[in-house]
């Protein structure tokens, strides 16, 4: 009843190719944005910000980056966290060594450094594909982390290897409350998500998907494979780099290599799988799912433990988490390989017909 397109005619190609062609969608996104920017900062608790909302947003950005590479361009990557680390450490060094460096520029600089490294490790993709490429990205993951740990100049010769991130200050305003950090992260992520969506529906997105689906045919119609693949690596790594910088500055408060382990790479890959490969919305849904899951699990188990006095150990919860993650991945791949984004699409289709069954 509510979700009907009846009466909404597109009179121009611009209207047809808009991001939200249906009016109800436009209203919906406006509401969500209003909630996110206006209501949440005033109502959420510091815990909600620091432990849930901020990491959700930052990892959505990283998932977006991985989605660009794996989802749109079809190049498998297991090294996402390493590119995030490059972004974090590069930002740190920009802030440290360039006097008066504006922090947003430092973040962008971190992203650019990550993009350059991404191009370097993306070069093998011109010869290798599939799992072989996945293994090559593992090389990136291990090698980059080793460099960041061993090369003293990068960590400013810190003895413990753990560096405190500088304060975020823009135009004199200090972003040191959770709410302030949340708004900053939200703004950056929103802008970059829009950019990603625009690229996805434009020529560059189509070129990437063409390369993913059948690269030989893409070549034949004039798409330059090298350029397309390296661009995918560059843009993807830029997104991951910025996410990595935000991870350090707005979430952890420290810049350390251990935070960007293989484990994080897998988490982000899971977000992409669960959320939906090749979907901007999917990156957010997947991130929300994976970020909330441990919390929900832990709360549920503790509740059951307390109610029924089961005496469940801490370690059991973390093992349970592993099992649930693993199980969910398999579940999603079997039931809906296109992830939550597809489920959402199906829900919308059903909604268009509601209350009729078909």
């Amino acid at each position, binding site marked *: 009843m509510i979700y009907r397109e009846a009466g909404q005619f597109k009179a121009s190609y611009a209207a047809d190719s808009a991001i939200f062609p249906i009016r109800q969608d436009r209203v919906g996104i406006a509401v969500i944005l209003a909630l996110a920017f206006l209501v949440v900062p005033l109502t959420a608790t510091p815990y909600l910000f620091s432990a849930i909302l901020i990491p959700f947003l930052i990892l959505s950005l990283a998932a977006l980056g991985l989605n660009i590479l794996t989802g749109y361009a079809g190049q498998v990557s297991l090294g996402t966290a390493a590119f995030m680390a490059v972004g974090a450490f590069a930002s740190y060094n920009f802030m440290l060594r360039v006097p008066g460096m504006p922090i947003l520029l430092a973040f962008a600089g971190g992203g650019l450094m990550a993009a350059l490294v991404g191009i370097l490790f993306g070069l093998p993709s011109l010869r290798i594909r599939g799992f072989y490429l996945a293994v*090559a990205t593992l*090389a990136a993951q*291990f*090698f980059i982390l080793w460099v960041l740990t061993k090369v003293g100049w990068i960590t400013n010769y810190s003895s413990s290897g753990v560096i405190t991130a500088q304060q975020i200050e823009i135009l004199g305003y200090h972003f040191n409350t959770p709410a302030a950090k949340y708004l900053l992260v939200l703004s950056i992520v929103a802008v970059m998500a829009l950019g990603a969506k625009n690229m996805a529906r434009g020529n560059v997105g189509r070129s990437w998907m063409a390369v993913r689906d059948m690269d*030989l045919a893409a070549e034949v119609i004039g798409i330059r494979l090298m350029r397309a693949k390296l661009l995918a690596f560059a843009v993807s790594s830029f997104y991951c780099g910025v996410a990595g910088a935000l991870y350090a500055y707005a979430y952890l408060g420290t810049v350390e290599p251990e935070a960007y382990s293989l484990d994080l790479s897998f988490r982000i890959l899971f977000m992409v799988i669960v959320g939906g490969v090749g979907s901007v919305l999917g990156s957010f849904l997947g991130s929300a799912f994976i970020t909330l899951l441990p919390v929900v699990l832990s709360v549920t188990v503790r509740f059951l433990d307390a109610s029924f006095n089961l005496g469940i150990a801490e370690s059991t919860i973390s093992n*349970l988490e592993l099992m649930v993650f693993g199980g969910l991945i398999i579940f999603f791949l079997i039931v809906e390989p296109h992830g939550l984004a597809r489920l959402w699409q199906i829900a919308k289709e059903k909604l268009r017909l509601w209350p009729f069954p078909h």
Partner: protein
Amino acid sequence: MSFFFEVLIGGLLSGVMYSLVALGFVLIYKASGVFNFAQGALVFFAALTFVGLQELKLPFWLALPATLAVMVLLALVIERVVLRPLVNQPQITLFMATIGLAFFIEGLAQMMWGANVRGLDLGLQDEPIQWISDASGMNISKFDLAAAGVAAVLVAALAVFFNRTRIGRALRAVADDHQAALAVGIPLRQIWTIVWGVAGAVALVAGLLWGARNGVQYALTFVALKALPVLILGGFESVPGAIVGGLIIGASEKLAEVYIGPYVGGGIEGWFPYVLALVFLLVRPEGLFGEKIIRRI
């Protein structure tokens, strides 16, 4: 000079261990076209189950077949729950499913048997063989040599199995094309259960050897990751390739750590095999023994 040989041989022998894990990968890939990221988790699970049973006072000669039975049971469950629903899906989907499987098995193993590090005693000591040590001054471990022997036997058996038996041929057909194999009446389910069972057995052997050497702990799962460069060098479908690849990776890793490591602050072992594999991929994408990929358009 003899130090060089000692490192080299030590590396080769540890490479044999990598090969054992890689062998499990190759089996599954050769027989079902699935790249089983969970192989390392299987190794971990097998080793942990074995020592767990031993802790429950089962003697060695009972614990071994019991663990084997558990691995076969696991194979049955995996086939039913993971593989069957994903028949004919693209390779990358199956690959990601095995990543999920790896996490699941790791969590399960630790939940069943606890996460403390345990030692594993196989009756073989990791000591230098006396007469070699006396004769040449090199320290070569009894244990490593025994492991190499076991691997050799295993490889020979598997090679015969694949190339000479009817089941072996059926397995190769399945790896090529699930649907076509089904269409000619090859019993996919049985085949897969057999294969994953055998891979589980190989994982058990690998798990016992690795566990005896380094203790049974979570880090064992990372051994699986090391098997990936082995596979790249050797080709994903080749049993001899897994051996040769393992030897090369093991040797080069140790040599690099000893001879290059000190100049760059050490810790090279973590990434050297991967970078080596990467360079290799650029030159020969299908590996030493792999089949050239031909695409027709």
